């Protein structure tokens, strides 16, 4: 387990597909997170960010109403959330999206389907960098 990750933090999972949210939630739990909230699109996520103290955002790329990229840009443009770590969940075959997200300031991305090990590795990378 990585010392840089505080597992007590609240994680926001944004995805329009409830089953997907549950899968991500399960995997996050497997890694050690216990405090997880969900949002069904970017707009809902923004609302959650306003009301709750979120430590990490795991968002899907393709969502109605407000896409993951728009959500990311919104997070980065608000000084209150600008430094919030964001992990993008994407599908293989949509590489141009990844580059776009990285340019917009995503901390890391993970390609579906992924295992707990892969997600943990990505999160460790993120938090190690933030701690360093």
């Amino acid at each position, binding site marked *: 387990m990585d010392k840089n990750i505080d597992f007590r933090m609240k994680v926001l999972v944004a995805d329009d597909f409830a089953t997907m949210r549950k899968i991500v939630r399960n995997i996050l739990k497997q890694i050690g997170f216990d405090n997880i909230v969900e949002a069904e699109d970017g707009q809902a996520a923004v609302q959650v960010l306003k009301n709750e103290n979120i430590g990490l955002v795991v968002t899907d790329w*393709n969502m109605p109403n407000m896409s993951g990229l728009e959500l990311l840009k919104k997070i980065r443009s608000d000084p209150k959330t600008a430094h919030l770590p964001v992990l993008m969940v994407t599908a293989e075959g949509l590489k141009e999206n990844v580059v776009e997200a990285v340019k917009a300031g995503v901390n890391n991305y993970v390609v579906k389907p992924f295992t707990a090990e892969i997600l943990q590795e990505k999160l460790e990378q993120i938090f190690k960098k933030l701690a360093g």
Partner: protein
Amino acid sequence: MTDQAPKNQELREGLEGLALKVVMLEEGDLPGLGAFLTHLEKIQEILPPDRSPEVTLLFQQLEDVGNKLILQEISPVAQAQELLSQGVSLLLTWARESAFPGESEPWKTYIRAAQELGLVKSEEGPPKTESAESAHEPEPEPALESQIWEDPELVANFIAEAREHLEGIESGLVHLEQAPTDLQAINAVFRPFHTVKGVAGFLNLPQIQELSHEVESLLDEARSGRLQITAPVIDLILVGVDRLKEMLDDLQEALSDHRSLQKFDLQDIKDLVKQLQQPGPTEEAPKRQLGEILVSQGEITGSDLDQALEQQKAQEKTPPLGEILVKEGKVSPKKVARALVDQLTEEKRVPETAAPPPAAEGKAAADAQMAATIKIDLAKVDNLVNLMGELVIAQSQVRQNPNLSAISDQKLERDLAQMSRITSELQMISMSMRMVPIGQTLRKMVRLVRDLSRKSRKTVELHLEGEDTEIDRNMVEAIYDPLVHLVRNAVDHGLESPKERQAVGKPQEGHVWLRAYHKGGNVVIDIEEDGRGLDRDRILAKAQERGLIQSGEQLTPTQIDYLIFEPGFSTAETITDISGRGVGMDVVRLTIERLQGKIEIHTRPQQGTRFTLRMPLTMAIIDGLVVKVGKERYILPAVAVRETLRPAASDYFTVQGQGEIIKVRSQLIPLVRLHRLFRTGNGDLPPTEALVMVVEHEGKQQGLLVDDILGKQEVVIKSLGDSFQKIKGLAGGTILGDGRVGLILDLAGIFALGQA
């Protein structure tokens, strides 16, 4: 030179900043790479137009390496980052000295490193690109097989959610057919396949994953403008939806029976997808090799190239071709760099023309949006609603308890009032939990209409209204079949063929409207078309032929219309493939009546027909009028009661052979004595002293004779149990406020009894 100075200064500062970003870069540092790339883009905007080709090449390669590092398509990573640093430092030298160090050692080192990383193809060079290409291949599937049986609930959730999304696709497609270039519409159809594929990957459902991938890839082409949405494309997507539904059905069965999954053949779909994906500009043109370019530019001759290639082969370390040519003095380094730029821009051009426009995210997709929800077993909600009904009754029993009413205590009264407020609110909330928007059911008709219109070669436009209208979840399934039947009839029988329409001066395109709304405590659904209208002469002829009516029987137009609901009636001359089988209109009527609802017809020749279904908001509770008949109490559905009156003696007649009749505003209405119907003893009052409830059913009216009206109240319908199920005239029972049982009248049955 002087006016260039400030710009140069800006450029230098920019490049210094870039160098700093490279130095700070750590392995796997995506934010760092992102910052590097955005910075790089900014500098490119202020590049002098007269820069040397090497500079252009460098910028393109830096961007390329940055992208590849993000996508993990380049390795070793350390070497790639080193290349970035070399490239930036070359650019810095260029900016400081205002000349590109084309002949220098760092430049040669850079080119060699770039070739080693596979950024520049060297003839016969070591196939370093392999590592980059292998990253394109799908990653080996993680071993997650156990998850499917480990978490059946998750799979069940997936099945339900995937089905929901597939239905969204069907209605999305119809929109797409009308606006084939609407990116938002394409994306709204693309997204469900995309998501289903993603989740299927997690749940280790390779067949579902593969199928959704096929359709998704086709739609992705459409998203990026490489494929036009045509009818065959939509057909294929629908085939994909159907196959996916079959797979979900199979998965559900497999899940409940603990069996393994069926094998589905996807070859037909794959072939079709391939066929539709035209070999357009998507296929990357093979890159021309460096030597080839130099020859074509006249810089070297063919024999120069052959010689250089020989030499390259002979050497152990296979140096880059450009290096050999420069060493041999055949061509200047500058020319090599220019050729490299050409080579790079050639490969760049391809993805540029095919660059997909940004995926549209927007309001068009909002209809697929879901509210924040939790899923509850419907049986639990049913139970809750039922118990709430009981609570309301128990509560009113307490209130009406004579001993309690004898106590005159203000506090008790207040408390009781408060309790009844809370219970009725609770009841409303618990009932609303079972209400769902009707949209999903209506949208299922979209696909149906599309298929029907194709089969019958009619052009039909379907209009949906009131998709947000809420309806009891238990009713949703019950109204599905009647709706399908009515929509089928509308398209198949109601609407004329385009030719016929044209002949009578109507637009060729027929319209079908499906409207849902709330009115007077009812859910109302209209199914309307602008077709030929009911042919009353034909209905009459048919009804006589079938012996449903006697010849010479006088019927009002409305009564004729309602004949189509008689068992054994069918207006279709020939039984087509589309309708005329299975459920008849009589079953439609029965189903609606079983839901305590009623069906109405409004038709006008050449203008169309509208069927109106009126159902109580929920099946569990009806708005009832409690009437007294002898010692018994009966409940009449309030929706059916037209008026209540006490007839004057002059308005009451006895007709030989037809029974009693009353006159209500010059209309003659048969009278039914509930006393006699239910044999409640001999306390029968004469009509002029009792009350007549005028009720309407299927356009016909009857007067029901009762002793008194005791009040209007919402009653919770209880089944009478199997043994009393078939008693004509009774729809169910309820427990009234005072704890007594009241029987709920079934008007269809009473009308039938009254006629017998």
